[in-house]
């Protein structure tokens, strides 16, 4: 289905050039290649009688792997280092905008990706299927209305929702009022694929047999001092007419004084009958200081075609703060922190003690001591349930002119886990370079060395030091717009005639 959709979009694009005679277009080709690797684990077993006593007194294999033996089972299980897996994903993204079909305000947009893993088959997620259409729609945009038809993604409080269908936005700019609606066949969450795609079911688990129908409404009011928005979205299984999800979201941002803002939002799961995630933050941003203080609540959302919502995931509540200060004209200092605590899950057991709260923090700086030079460094630490980490990183960038830059970077990281003996110590260092050899071409290269040591008291500790290489080339083509718009934001650059059409 996706392949056909991409081909259809490409054919439409070709047809547009030939028959509709688009007066202008912009095409951006972004090709990236990466050579990566990782090494996981592989489950194994050993007869209880073949185990020996390990260094800690527990059972182990003769070659030193700690094993787990269930009472009465004839075999014990353990995880030995898995094979090194090499991936080399190569992905090209084409982003096309066309306009000038004879009707003012009509344009066509398409974003598609073609990807292949040149290493072991499907080692690196994201290249299956090989062709993916992220967006492909025709748009009519006027002062009071914007309408789209085709594959599109709408962004709201309820997330990034992809669908094949139609959307319309009506607005009264004088009063700052906007109303929108959309409907169509939905895509899966977090990916531009239908939920029926085999690529989304690697565990051979429950999976819907038909794509869900999705529909949503939004209403917004915007003024100089405040923005308000409400969103409603429902997804329905067309086979049974049962709900897949039904949620509402509320968002607001208030700017009571220059530099000050209060932004917040919340979503309510009407299908589960509980509040989902919410946050509110007071922000201050002027030339030398950017700071915010806020509270956050997070609860995951699960569609009703899974059973996970019935397992009652509990939310956590967090308090967070961040500040960035331009201490000197050449030096910016930054710090941030977050403290969180999960709600009572009502599952306490005397046998297992699980951490229920945690914190995260980071301090860092960015310095530009001389023209073309940028130094950045930071220390980050987090402690919480499941896993913790602590590490420092630093980069030095030299960019004497806007057309090229070179960066060297290094980082170190400790990562203890709560539920598994696998304290990992990682060291990273590498180099990146980027250049614009021609006005419409950008190329980039990166090489990074990862030295990862799994500190574990038995033989299951292993390292998987590796090099990661990245290559990137961006080509831009265009006709019908200004050629000297490099300094303008993308939204202005892609307008017919550049910024003149605003």
């Amino acid at each position: 289905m996706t392949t056909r959709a991409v081909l259809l979009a490409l054919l439409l694009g070709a047809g547009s050039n030939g028959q509709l005679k688009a007066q202008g277009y912009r095409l951006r080709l972004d090709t990236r290649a990466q050579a990566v690797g990782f090494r996981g684990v592989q489950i194994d077993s050993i007869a209880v009688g073949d185990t020996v006593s390990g260094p800690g007194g527990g059972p182990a294999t003769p070659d030193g792997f700690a094993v787990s033996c269930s009472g009465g089972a004839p075999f014990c299980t353990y995880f030995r280092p898995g094979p090194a897996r090499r991936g080399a994903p190569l992905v090209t993204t084409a982003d096309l905008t066309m306009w000038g079909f004879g009707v003012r305000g009509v344009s066509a947009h398409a974003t598609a990706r073609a990807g292949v893993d040149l290493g072991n088959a499907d080692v690196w997620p994201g290249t299956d299927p090989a062709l993916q259409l992220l967006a492909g729609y025709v748009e009519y945009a006027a002062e009071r209305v914007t309408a789209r038809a085709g594959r599109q993604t709408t962004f709201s409080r309820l997330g990034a929702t992809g669908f094949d269908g139609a959307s319309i936005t009506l607005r009264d700019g004088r009063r700052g009022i906007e109303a929108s609606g959309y409907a169509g066949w939905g895509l899966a969450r977090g990916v531009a694929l239908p939920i029926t795609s085999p690529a989304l079911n690697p565990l051979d688990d429950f999976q819907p047999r038909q794509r869900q129908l999705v529909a949503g409404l939004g209403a917004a009011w915007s003024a100089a001092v405040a923005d308000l928005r409400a969103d409603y979205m429902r997804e329905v299984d067309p086979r049974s007419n049962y709900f897949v999800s039904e949620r509402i979201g509320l968002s607001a941002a208030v700017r009571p004084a220059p530099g000050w803002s209060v932004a917040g939002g919340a979503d309510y799961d009407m299908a589960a009958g509980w509040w989902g995630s919410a946050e509110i933050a007071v922000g201050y941003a002027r030339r030398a200081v950017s700071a915010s203080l806020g509270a956050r609540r997070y609860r995951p959302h699960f569609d009703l075609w899974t059973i996970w919502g019935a397992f009652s995931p509990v939310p956590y509540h967090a308090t967070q703060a961040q500040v960035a200060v331009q201490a000197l004209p050449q030096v910016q200092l930054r710090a941030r922190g977050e403290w969180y605590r999960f709600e009572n899950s009502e599952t306490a057991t005397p046998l297992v003690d699980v951490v229920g709260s945690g914190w995260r923090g980071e301090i860092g700086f960015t310095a530009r001591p001389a023209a073309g030079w940028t130094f950045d460094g930071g220390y980050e630490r987090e402690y919480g349930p499941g896993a913790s980490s602590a590490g420092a990183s630093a980069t030095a960038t030299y960019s004497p002119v806007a057309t090229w830059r070179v960066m060297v970077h290094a980082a170190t990281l400790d990562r203890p886990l709560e539920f598994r003996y696998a304290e990992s110590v990682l060291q990273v260092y590498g180099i990146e370079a980027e250049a614009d050899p021609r006005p419409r071409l950008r190329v980039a290269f990166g090489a990074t060395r990862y030295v990862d040591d799994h500190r574990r008291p038995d033989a299951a500790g292993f390292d998987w030091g590796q090099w990661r290489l990245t290559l990137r080339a961006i080509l831009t083509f265009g006709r019908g717009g200004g050629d000297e718009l490099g300094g303008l934001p993308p939204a202005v650059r892609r307008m017919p005639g550049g910024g003149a059409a605003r």
Partner: protein
Amino acid sequence: MRHATAVLVLALSLAASRLSAQGGGAGFDHEKHRALFPTCASCHVGAVAGGVSLWPEPVSCAACHDGTIEKVVTWSPPRVPRRSNLRFDHVRHATSAGTKAPACVACHAEAGAPRMAVRPAAPERCLDCHAIRTAHLAAPDSACAQCHVALAQATHLTRQDIAGFRAPPSHADPRFAGADGHGAVARQAVAASCATCHAREFCYQCHAGATPPRAIAALASDPRSTAIAARGAPASHGGNFADRHGTAAAAAGARCSGCHVRTECLDCHRPVAAAGPGYHPAGFLSRHPAAAYARETSCSDCHSVGGFCAACHAQAGLVATGVLRSGYHDAKRFFLVGHGQAARQSLESCVACHAERDCLTCHSALGGRRFNPHGPGFDANRMRRKNPETCTACHGTAIPVR
């Protein structure tokens, strides 16, 4: 040989500079010819009569420079108009000034200098006559348009010319970048002065919102104006804005769409498999358990749990296969018995490795061990109303009614 080359290069340079001087007229030695030309208009008729070139005809030079009386010169008047944004025209200026029209030397010579000691007109002389008692760039905002045309009308200026514009001292004030600075100036109906150096595209470098201020709309469009680089992202985008932009974007997405296009959103929200470090820093793969367990951000906004997390964990051998075993979580001896809290705290992490069948081994009313998975906040009736098929996974057709 090297000396010969140097001499040749020097000779060519001199010849080029001479030709350049002849072409532009700047090399003409007015002082030397002072006895021949009693008035400026003798050669520069266009300065006093409309419709006539400001420059003399080359043939008039040849009257003397014929190779006999004087050596031949190969001068010709400039063929392209001067790259300038001045609105000055000699005849119109003289006509409008009437009896107050200054003599040529008033602008083209230093005060007290001999008549033919000419030089290009200095802006300060214009300011003197027009009673503007400041340095050129410090002139009041309302004064620019008196002598200069708008940038969009100065069609002969190149991007390099525009990039070389010197900023007025008022622009160096730290407050000038704010709404109380240049914003107030622009609102005071002096857009014509702003237009001397700027056009709409210059403003769009920062003011790219859906409804830009009215003063910007009053400006003409001219892509060359981006040759002057404006400030980048707004102050609100500082710090870790990428992590916390969601709330502001949800409240007022239209503000974002003034600068950003959806493809930019998709770059992160639908990530490229071959992308190197970007939103996540290098080494994040090793750090991600800590960020993911108590979601630092909502991972599922950008990553499919099935197509990304589980797919990668399957390759790494982390997913449960066959009969459920407790060996992986070996840091907690009785983890299988006491996993409930960990699961309810981060169910998204669990499902990145475990399929529903793993949990239904115990948590099912249809042959499992019938451990009730429903916890705080569970509304059975509501869920049954919305989608009873969810209930049948554990309860079959005998869905209990509460």
